[in-house]
């Protein structure tokens, strides 16, 4: 404890004449300022922030706080925001809260209009995209994922999902697990992911790379097997026969818990259908017509309905549509296969659709006996729990085989992938197949825009009172005082 007499001595010394001017005084000033700065720096480490808003929109959830507290790798955040937009403020505010809680987050706000070169390096195509990067890993988040705006309700409110996406992105890019590889099959005239013309799939490649995948090609006829680091195998519209040896390799891959995405096209059979049949997917040899729900009046480009699945749930929520130009339909086979579970992903929307099988007729129309009857399934997801032999008493984690089959591949080509739903569906399918773990679900914060409706009369009242009457009262008080003084 500091003695009272010591303080008194100190104060007396400070009061002395010699102290007040001269080097002693300067040292005193510098030390006091130094202590003040030190206290501030100290507090910033043990800081406490209190959120007074009604729905605690600036508070971070416990999950996020935990992630940020345990963050030990540097994460760079590049927010390409449109200046002045309402979204810009929300994103900035949220990122600000994040940076307050960890020193490992380095945020940079970039105006994509002012720095187009930087924007294109990161593949930015739209405003309000936020990129999280750590080392070689990168994850991009888009405006349409962050906001869902309900403008038709009584109280218009914008729901902001920022916290969930941002925290998950941080987890994704700092995960210890090695980057997953997506292999694209080649050797059967499949669509080329390096082809950036209309029929190629280079846009898909870019999108997957933005989502932290490394993309490779594989010719299993040459290699003889599927590589060990294959996270997902994509077969993008084979155009020639898949021979038995290859089918066996693929079968083995799936039997051991492989993950595969198969895109097919109408009018082509490659014997891959036999493999799919074993996994409960029956491929029809037809061409889907849906005159009531199609793209630009072309009934051969149906706009499908979402059937409720992890892959399509965001598309459904955000009301984003897909188009499948030139598709064949699929069904679940009747044979039972133990341990398998089959879900429809996409279906034609109307009962006015059909699967045309008569390719010779001039006028395509629904013939009940020949054609596939509605509703038609356009994409299917299959899961299967692989039976594993127990090695003694060791617990083995069950492996799940996952398969997605789509009756069209054009939707993933460069010409059709500008349609937002198409791109998302493909990427979501890959994500689902690769089984993205550790995804945290954080409840979105709804920020109710506090509207205030003012009639003309009320507006006038407010204006006159605040701008004229109140100041006038003050001025009158001043004049009154002035007059009183003059009288004196």
């Amino acid at each position, binding site marked *: 404890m500091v003695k009272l007499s010591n303080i008194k001595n100190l104060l007396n010394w400070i009061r002395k*004449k010699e102290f*007040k*001017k001269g080097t002693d*005084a300067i040292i*005193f*000033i510098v030390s*006091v*300022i130094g202590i*003040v*700065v030190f*206290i*501030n720096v100290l*507090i*910033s480490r043990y*800081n*406490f*922030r*209190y*959120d*007074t*808003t*009604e729905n605690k929109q*600036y508070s971070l959830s416990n999950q996020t706080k935990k992630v940020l507290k345990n963050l030990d790798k540097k994460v760079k955040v590049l927010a390409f925001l449109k200046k002045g937009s309402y979204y810009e403020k929300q994103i900035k*505010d949220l990122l600000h809260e994040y940076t307050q809680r960890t020193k490992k987050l380095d945020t*940079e706000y970039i105006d994509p209009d002012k720095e187009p070169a930087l924007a294109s390096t990161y593949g930015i195509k739209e405003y309000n995209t936020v990129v999280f990067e750590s080392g070689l890993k990168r994850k991009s988040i888009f405006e349409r994922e962050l906001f869902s705006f309900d403008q038709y309700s009584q109280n218009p409110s914008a729901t902001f999902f920022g916290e969930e996406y941002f925290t998950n992105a941080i987890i994704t890019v700092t995960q210890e697990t090695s980057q997953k590889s997506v292999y694209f099959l080649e050797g059967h005239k499949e669509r080329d992911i390096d082809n950036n013309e209309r029929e190629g799939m280079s846009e898909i490649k870019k999108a997957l790379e933005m989502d932290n995948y490394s993309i490779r090609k594989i010719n299993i006829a040459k290699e003889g097997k599927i590589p060990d680091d294959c996270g997902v195998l994509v077969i993008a519209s084979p155009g020639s026969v898949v021979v038995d040896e290859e089918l066996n390799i693929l079968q083995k891959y799936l039997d051991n818990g492989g993950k595969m995405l198969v895109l097919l096209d109408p009018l082509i059979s490659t014997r891959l259908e036999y493999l799919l049949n074993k996994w409960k997917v029956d491929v029809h040899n037809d061409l889907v017509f849906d005159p009531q729900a199609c793209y630009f009046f072309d009934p051969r480009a149906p706009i499908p309905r979402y059937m409720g699945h992890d892959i399509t749930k965001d598309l459904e929520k955000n009301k984003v549509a897909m188009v499948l130009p030139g598709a064949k339909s699929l069904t679940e086979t009747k044979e039972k296969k133990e341990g398998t579970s089959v879900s429809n992903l996409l279906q034609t929307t109307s009962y006015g659709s059909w699967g045309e099988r008569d390719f010779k007729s001039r006028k395509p129309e629904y013939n009940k006996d020949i054609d596939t009857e509605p509703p038609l399934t356009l994409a299917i997801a299959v899961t299967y729990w692989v039976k594993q032999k127990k090695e003694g008493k060791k617990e083995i984690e069950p492996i799940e085989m996952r398969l997605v089959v789509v009756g069209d591949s054009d939707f993933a080509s460069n010409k059709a992938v500008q349609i937002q739903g198409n791109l998302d569906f493909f990427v979501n399918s890959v994500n689902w197949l690769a089984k993205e773990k550790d995804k945290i679900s954080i409840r979105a914060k709804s920020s109710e*825009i*506090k*509207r*205030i*409706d*003012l009639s003309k009369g*009320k*507006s006038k009242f*407010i*204006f006159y*009172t*605040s*701008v*004229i009457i*109140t*100041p*006038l009262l*003050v*001025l009158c*008080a*001043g*004049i009154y*005082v*002035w007059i009183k*003084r003059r009288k004196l």
Partner: protein
Amino acid sequence: MISAIKTFFKRIFPIVKKELYSYFVSPIAYIVITVFLVISGYFFSMILFYGQSAELRGVIHNMSITLLFISPIITMRLLAEEKKLGTIELLTTYPISLTHIVLGKYFASLILFLIISFITLEYPVFLLIYGKPDIGPMLSAYLGFILLGGVFLSAGLFASSLTENQIVATVIGFGILLMLWIISWAGGLVNGNIGSILSSLSVFEHFDSFTRGIIDVADCLYYISLSFSFVFLTIRRLEWKRW
């Protein structure tokens, strides 16, 4: 201990009283308040009509900038005049120290500022009558505004201690406050480490949290530290000058 505090306030009180009296006797205070209210009222109305949103965030930002401009005018007289009139000799004969004098004058300017702030409470009152605003952020915005005022006034106080001329005091006061403002701009423009250091020094960067509804201990401490530093420098400056 308590008696020491009691005597402290007893000694300051006459200074505060005298200073407040001279504020309300001079026309300057009324003109300054009126101008501030007209500008703030105008911004309040316009922001409300165009934004149609029951919040103070926009207007309190404008009020803080307006405050930056009127603070030097409020504080210019505090110390500069004393030297000119030579009344500082008179003051020092009383059994009160320079510290008491400086603090007394500072508190007087603070009280004037609190009176102005009180009058502007009509804005949130309007919002409460005609809408359903979020009360938390309104309270925190005012807290931030008051702390900010404390900083501006302390800077003006320091400026007025540097010279005998009121006009020069005002100009220096403007200079210091504009420097603080510029640091916050620069912090926003420059990226990277320098940018973040500048931002953490900027007066307005800390203010933003208050307007959003967040009461941050570090922000409060920052403002109090800054005010303390200016007042402390003022006292040291006068001591230096005296001897």
